[in-house]
């Protein structure tokens, strides 16, 4: 039992963090939000180049093998930098395409970053359906390759999340897609991303309250300010082990627990961050908004809080989990 990231895993996180810091993600996010995808696509290629999507693809299909821990580590960094695009959906797509014929045909392009995927139940919003090159949707008949987006792009509360519905029909890929398995991977990635979003919000807010002065002192010296940030820190630090623990076990219940906890922690941190920034936090111009809005959106996607809590209880046959 050594429940700590290995040095290589930590180094992987650090290198992604450094790469994304250098890439000036906020401006890529802003152009993505306007429907200009070139910078985001370039960022995507770098993320894929670092092997992120390959972590959800078996080696036989040009991936790095299924490595949920490394995937979680990577998604924390993607969240920390508010990287735009159907990141989770691409992972979900990879997890849906387990059937060997499909895997051979579609996975290598996802692993390499050549293709972006989106994935959603038929009739639901699919993230970035206008830019995704592999659009998966499923209904009672099975999993289909949707022919294209249906109707206009709808704006999300998070401007960087562009919502579309997918056209019905399209090629039937498999009658029995591994939906539960894909949902687990999607939730894990979302949980990790949310944790990263929360950590970024906390970092930025700590920095801000250390600099902003009112009444002649930094506002960070006021206890009412400190205690809100302490609570955000507690919430995030207790979400982190759930995310990593879920990546180790990959049980539905553990992943659902991680999803709800990380998303709630990030959301709570977002509320605190907004409050402590005062009016400047309430502006779209200020970069904080990129994380604030994402925290809200991630909370509802791939299973909201109630659904995840129900999954936790459903997953426990006997008592609560010991070890």
């Amino acid at each position, binding site marked *: *039992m*050594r*429940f*700590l*990231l*290995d040095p290589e*895993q930590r180094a992987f996180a650090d290198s992604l963090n450094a790469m994304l810091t250098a890439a000036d993600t906020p401006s890529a996010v802003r152009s993505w939000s306007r429907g200009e995808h070139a910078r985001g696509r370039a960022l995507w290629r770098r993320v894929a180049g670092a092997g992120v999507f390959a972590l959800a693809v078996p080696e036989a299909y040009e991936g790095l093998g299924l490595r949920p*821990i490394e995937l979680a580590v990577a998604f924390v960094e993607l969240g920390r930098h508010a990287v735009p695009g159907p990141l989770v959906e691409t992972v979900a797509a990879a997890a849906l395409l387990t059937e060997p014929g499909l895997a051979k045909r579609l996975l290598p392009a996802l692993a390499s970053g050549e293709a972006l995927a989106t994935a959603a139940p038929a009739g639901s919003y699919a993230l970035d359906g206008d830019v995704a090159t592999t659009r998966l949707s499923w209904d009672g008949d099975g999993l289909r390759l949707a022919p294209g987006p249906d109707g206009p792009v709808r704006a999300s509360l998070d401007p960087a999340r562009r919502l579309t519905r997918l056209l019905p029909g399209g090629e039937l890929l498999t009658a029995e897609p591994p939906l539960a398995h894909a949902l687990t991977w999607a939730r894990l990635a979302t949980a990790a991303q949310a944790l990263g979003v929360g950590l970024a919000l*906390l970092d930025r807010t*700590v920095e801000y*309250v*250390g600099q902003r002065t009112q009444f002649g*002192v*930094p506002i*960070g*010296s*006021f*206890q009412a*300010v*400190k*205690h809100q*940030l*302490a*609570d955000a*820190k*507690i919430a995030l*630090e*207790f*979400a*982190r*082990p*759930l995310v*990593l*623990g879920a990546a*180790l*076990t990959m049980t539905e219940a*553990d992943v659902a*627990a991680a999803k*709800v*906890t990380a998303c709630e922690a990030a959301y709570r941190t977002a509320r605190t961050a907004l409050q402590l920034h005062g009016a400047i936090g309430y502006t779209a111009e200020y970069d904080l908004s990129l994380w604030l809005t994402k925290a809200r959106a991630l909370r509802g996607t791939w299973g909201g*809080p*109630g659904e995840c*809590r*129900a999954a*936790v*209880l459903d997953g*426990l046959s006997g*008592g*609560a*989990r*010991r*070890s």
Partner: protein
Amino acid sequence: MDLDFTPGQEAFRAEARAWLRAHVPASPLPSLETEEGFAAHRVWEAQLAADRWSVVSWPEEYGGRGVDLVRWLVFEEEYYAAGAPGRVGQNGINLLAPTLFDHGTREQRARVLPEMATGEVVWAQAWSEPEAGSDLASLTSRAVRTDGGWLLSGQKTWSSRAAFADRAFGLFRSEPDTPRPQQGLTYLMFDLRAPGVTVRPIGRLDGRPAFAELFLDEVFVPDEDVIGEPGQGWRVAMSTAGNERGLTLRSPGRFLAAADRLLNLWREQGSSEALRDRVADAVIGARAYQLFTYANASRFLDGESIGPESSLNKVFWSEYDIALHETALELLGEDGELADTDWAEGYVFSLAGPIYAGTNEIQRDIIAERLLGLPKGRR
């Protein structure tokens, strides 16, 4: 990174489980916050100690098994899962013992620890005073030099279980005029039945005499009961507070077992839709705390120290404990009002969590200033 236990750790778990299954009293002991409960719990401590289960992480020479933190956590999980009694010796075991391991003399360890391990001597913590709560360093009770020792005078309060305990440890001002209040304090052990000591039990919220105030009037303490150097008491007392205490004050085992009980209650009561989310949060919270603690234990075993991070634990478990019990009382419906249930007793106890062991406001200050690096403000 893994969550797998080694075959040796699994064997240890099995051994602990088997022993507990064979020995845990079939019906719960009376509350340890009562005189008869205290006596019954001492008997239980002695039974634990006889088979060396009372202080598994201590060296064998003092009655332990010398196991590392992971095995200690495993033991705690099994202990609470088995429904074993609360630990009457926990103040000594969690607070005084680590201090003696770090700062005590060989003689003190040899004299104090074995009797602590068997429950023969139960220790009370005498830190707080009427005018020194959160601002502990403002304490005024005195230790005055005398032949071969010290004379203690003053008043201590809120001393858990002191109504029935045998001995106490605490801080006393031995040098009155120091530039800072943290200086000139001496850490001493004393006998609660020594001449000059008056113990007045205080009824807790539910009336049980769970703590007491202590009036000290020139109580003689020999030199060998000073822990560390005279005048260095603050450093001695604080040095042990962070590291192991952050891990061991409240083990995850307790909350995992409580979440289990809550889940069972919820199912027995018809799996109320209205309380489903809160039950789920209790289950999730216990798991989060377990994994958080595993991570800390792993760091500790890697040789890292765990200092202000222990404040994260404290706030988390104390608030968790209250939420869990509130949910249980709601599930019980009208029976939730009854005072004589285990849930009610647990609830009353949980309410004190944010107050003792450093109030949650103080812990949040520590988190903000020492973990987040925010500027110090006025206290």
